[in-house]
């Protein structure tokens, strides 16, 4: 089976649908037409650029290039985690907390998959490493952003309860325990839901892509299972790390609740 290449004309047909949606948004006064069009334009530009980059990397397979690409992905994902917080940690913690947790979980799980499970040669072969990293970052980023956002928002709303517990002599872990657990759970729910309906309600994007590209369905399925498990593990560990360190950061060395360490954030 050969892949049917898409022409610019094919893509512009799909683009017309997006324009139509923007028109409806404007007509109904939803006010999202601008962000919709900007996002669509970003999709085109960013994907074309990454296409060029991948083309270059696939022809010059080298660990240095892979490292640079992985780092860029990490930093952009880290920034995304930060800007999605309603109340983010001030200073280096705002960016560092999500980025470090993502670094630990994503790189560990991806390296494990590349070297032990897939056993690619070389282990950093971009054909495997880049898509895996991309999917890992995309999902881990979501989990960590959701978890941290829930943590800081709930702590802010429940500050009198947290301090009420501290007054009774609870330590910081006990004082924020239920909020901590809730926040980790919030980060994990999307991937748990995705695994629960995979193949029945939704055909995961990667698997669909492989099948469209002509892979045998069972091969595509195996890869999809691997990816789902990696994402679950990566998101889970990353969220646990980020939310736990975040919860600790809400208290100082004398276990006082320090909401002054949060700043009012963006969206």
């Amino acid at each position, binding site marked *: 089976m050969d892949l049917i290449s898409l022409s610019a004309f094919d893509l512009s047909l799909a683009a017309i649908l997006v324009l139509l949606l923007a028109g409806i948004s404007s007509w109904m006064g939803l006010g999202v037409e601008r962000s919709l069009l900007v996002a669509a334009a970003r999709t085109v530009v960013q994907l074309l650029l990454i296409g060029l980059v991948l083309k270059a990397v696939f022809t010059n397979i080298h660990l240095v290039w892979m490292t640079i690409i992985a780092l860029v992905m990490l930093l952009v994902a880290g920034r995304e985690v930060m800007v999605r917080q309603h109340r983010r940690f001030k200073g280096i913690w705002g960016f560092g907390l999500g980025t470090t947790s993502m670094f630990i979980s994503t790189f560990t799980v991806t390296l494990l998959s590349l070297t032990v499970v897939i056993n690619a040669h070389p282990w950093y072969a971009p054909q495997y490493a880049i898509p895996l990293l991309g999917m890992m970052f995309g999902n881990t980023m979501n989990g960590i952003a959701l978890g941290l956002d829930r943590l800081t928002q709930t702590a802010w709303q429940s500050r009198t309860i947290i301090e009420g517990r501290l007054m009774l002599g609870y330590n910081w872990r006990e004082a924020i325990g239920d909020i901590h657990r809730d926040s980790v759970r919030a980060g994990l729910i999307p991937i748990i839901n995705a695994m629960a309906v995979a193949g029945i309600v939704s055909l995961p994007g990667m698997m669909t892509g492989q099948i469209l590209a002509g892979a045998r369905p069972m091969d595509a399925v195996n890869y999809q299972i691997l990816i789902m498990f990696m994402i679950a593990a990566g998101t889970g560990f990353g969220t646990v790390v980020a939310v736990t360190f975040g919860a600790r950061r809400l208290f100082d060395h004398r276990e*006082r609740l320090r909401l002054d360490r949060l700043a009012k954030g963006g969206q």
Partner: protein
Amino acid sequence: MQGLRIEALESNGIGPCSLEVAAGECVCVSGASGAGKSLMLRAIADLDPHHGKVFLNDLECNTMNPGTWRRKVGLLPAESQWWHETVGEHFRDEPDSSILVALGFEGDVLAYQVMRLSSGERQRLGLLRLLCNQPRTLLLDEPTSSLDAENIRRVERLIEDYRTQYQTPVIWVSHDQQQIARISDRHYRIVDGKLEEA
């Protein structure tokens, strides 16, 4: 010195405040709202960053684990917080039945739904929960503000008994001049964040 000693306490724009409350003594603090009464109590309980030192029976706050310190200094906030469904879930140890009775409750109060408590019941139960920790100091932030006359007397008598029995220093924030006259050994006002003997 046995008792509570506060040296040049400064926090969130209040202070420096210095105060000694001897074992078994009750000091009342009053002042306009926003003058910093609650902030002072919070700083003593080490809930806010502060300068200055606080000693309980000559042991400085920082020499103790924060949880231990807070259990010992027993701060009762103006509004008590409840996070479980029933009252009993908020108690780690079975409350002393004599205190329960002294506050006008029956044994079944632990099964009460928190949602259905009146503000007066919340206030008295907050005190009950605090006393279960057997604090060595009491910092009471308007502990009778939502109580009727009968319950005000109950609480005053209970605190009186507790502080004489355990020789507990007490700082009691109150606006009621008659109450202050009834219960206090000394009375201070907070004006512009500073303590002044009244």
